[in-house]
């Protein structure tokens, strides 16, 4: 699986900040630089946000890719609308995209709204086999569930994501409008986060990608400013109402569903992990629908956006006041309802499993605990692992050497020199009785 999150080695100083912020413990420091354990990465972008040296980036597609196609369609995420100050409506953004060189636009919010309409009218068709229903909209959360909460896989809606539906519908429309074969049409999403870039190329829920690529909101934002200002009266290009646009922030998808449904809307990876653990143990009774967003405030908080997520949400709510509740009718607009069904089953990705053979896994676990007891428990990160436990695991799994722990090495020095705790770095030496307590 290819990931969009990548490290720029020239900037990385191996400071361990990202390693400690990673919610799936997917980062190690090796040879003075951060390194990603690819199979554990969910592309949530936490490391991008935490890096003090701006050395971690989400690599999205280059705009040059537009030249590879005879006709191109832009699929803007509704989070894009929240980036601009004093915006008079979404139409200006959409026309701005046309002026940038796209031949057509298809709002991702339109597809969101169609999915909401379908969920409201035919709750059975879009529901999962187990309760509560968990949204499939956030690709980082999907990957997290595949790795860490496999018991919850059958709670996830079997529908594709809004941007995937938008891509399918946009391509169909472009084929109709132009008469070109589908492969001559380039369908590109404009996305708020690294997980959506990865999902555009390697979707979890589809056999074949339906997008030709993904550009970041951040890159297009700057390019859009001038053309958007030059528009006097924008063409009436807006096709989505409130029901679609509100998917940009956490709670939007849930509140566009059937009234009367009890829903949970949770944002931020730590909170998402906590709530998934509670759902797994049946500790969240009476909930029908669960919307989970890896980023704070939802997609507006994505690592490829420009504006503060809270400010974006405020702007979107303001824009929504001028919009109709919904502009979409699934039954009338989607001729083949089966296109919203995922064609790939979400599979358990056992990346945390110590060994397939349980006897071996238990031996390894025992060895990990034994080693962990000898480690200082400082979570200093000097060994290149995010915690002493993760380090012990790395050693037992052959990803690190015991001597990578500076305290282990220094303890061995003490055996040779025999001097008290002088082998430790000064801050970690025990206070002697006669010394007064220090205040810093």
């Amino acid at each position: 699986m290819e990931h969009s999150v990548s490290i720029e080695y020239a900037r990385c100083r191996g400071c361990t900040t990202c390693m400690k912020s990673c919610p799936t413990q997917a980062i190690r420091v090796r040879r003075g630089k951060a390194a990603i354990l690819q199979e554990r990465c969910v592309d949530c972008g936490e490391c991008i946000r935490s890096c003090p040296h701006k050395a971690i980036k989400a690599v999205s597609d280059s705009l040059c890719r537009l030249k590879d196609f005879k006709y191109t369609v832009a699929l803007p995420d509704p989070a894009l609308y929240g980036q601009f100050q004093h915006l008079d409506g979404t139409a200006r953004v959409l026309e701005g995209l046309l002026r940038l060189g796209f031949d057509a636009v298809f709002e991702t919010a339109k597809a969101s709204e169609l999915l909401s309409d379908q969920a409201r009218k035919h709750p059975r068709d879009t529901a999962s086999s187990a309760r509560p229903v968990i949204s499939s909209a956030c690709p980082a959360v999907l990957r997290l569930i595949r790795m860490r909460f496999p018991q919850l896989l059958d709670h996830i809606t079997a529908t594709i994501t809004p941007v995937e539906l938008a891509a399918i519908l946009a391509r169909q429309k472009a084929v109709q409008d132009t008469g070109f074969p589908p492969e001559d049409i380039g369908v590109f999403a404009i996305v708020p986060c690294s997980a959506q870039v990865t999902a555009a190329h390697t979707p979890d829920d589809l056999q074949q990608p339906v997008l030709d690529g993904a550009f970041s909101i951040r890159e297009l934002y700057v390019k859009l400013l001038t053309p958007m200002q030059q528009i006097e009266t924008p063409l009436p290009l807006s096709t989505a109402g409130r029901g679609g646009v509100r998917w940009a922030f956490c709670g939007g998808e849930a509140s566009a569903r059937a009234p009367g449904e009890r829903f949970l809307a949770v944002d931020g990876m730590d909170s998402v992990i906590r709530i998934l653990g509670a759902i797994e143990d049946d500790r969240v009774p009476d909930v029908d629908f669960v919307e989970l967003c890896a980023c704070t405030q939802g997609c507006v908080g994505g690592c490829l956006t420009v504006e503060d997520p809270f400010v974006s949400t405020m702007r979107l709510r303001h824009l929504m006041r001028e919009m109709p509740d919904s502009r979409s009718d699934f039954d009338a607009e989607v001729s083949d309802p089966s296109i919203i069904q995922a064609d790939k089953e979400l599979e358990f990705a056992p990346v945390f499993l110590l060994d397939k053979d349980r006897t071996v896994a238990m031996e390894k676990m025992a060895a990990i605990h034994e080693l962990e007891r000898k480690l200082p428990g400082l979570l200093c990160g000097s060994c290149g692992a995010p915690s002493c436990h993760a380090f012990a695991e790395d050693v037992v799994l052959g990803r690190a050497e015991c001597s990578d722990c500076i305290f282990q090495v220094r303890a061995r020095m003490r055996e040779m020199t025999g001097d008290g705790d002088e082998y430790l770095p000064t801050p970690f030496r025990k206070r002697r009785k006669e010394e007064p307590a220090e205040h810093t």
Partner: protein
Amino acid sequence: MEPVKLVYPVEGGDLIEAGEASSKMKLTLKKLGLPPDVIRRASICMYEGEINMVIHADGGRAEVDVGMEEITIRMIDQGPGIPDVNKAMEEGYSTAGDMARDLGFGAGMGLPNMKRYSDEMEIETAVGSGTTVTIKIKI
């Protein structure tokens, strides 16, 4: 083969943080590749035990032995003990205080749930010196 031994301290007086031990244990059991149903039952029992220790005994500790055939969880506290075990096992009976009830605990389902989700359960208790609840879950 020797069972894998896990020990988790449970802090007293902190209902908000309760559940930490069970979620840590759960991750460990997942790393060992135990069947999902076993993990779920162990986690539910441990969570109920944790809540009990926080509400009634100002914390304690949980010792978990993971063997090839079964998981044994011992929830050990030095709390006030349970004067009437039969009564404590009744569904809906609780001596939890107002604070715990305000937070939605104290429904009197703790021990009954532990019994329901485990294969064996044993309570050793002495008024004034503490309680040890031992449960076993077959793998």
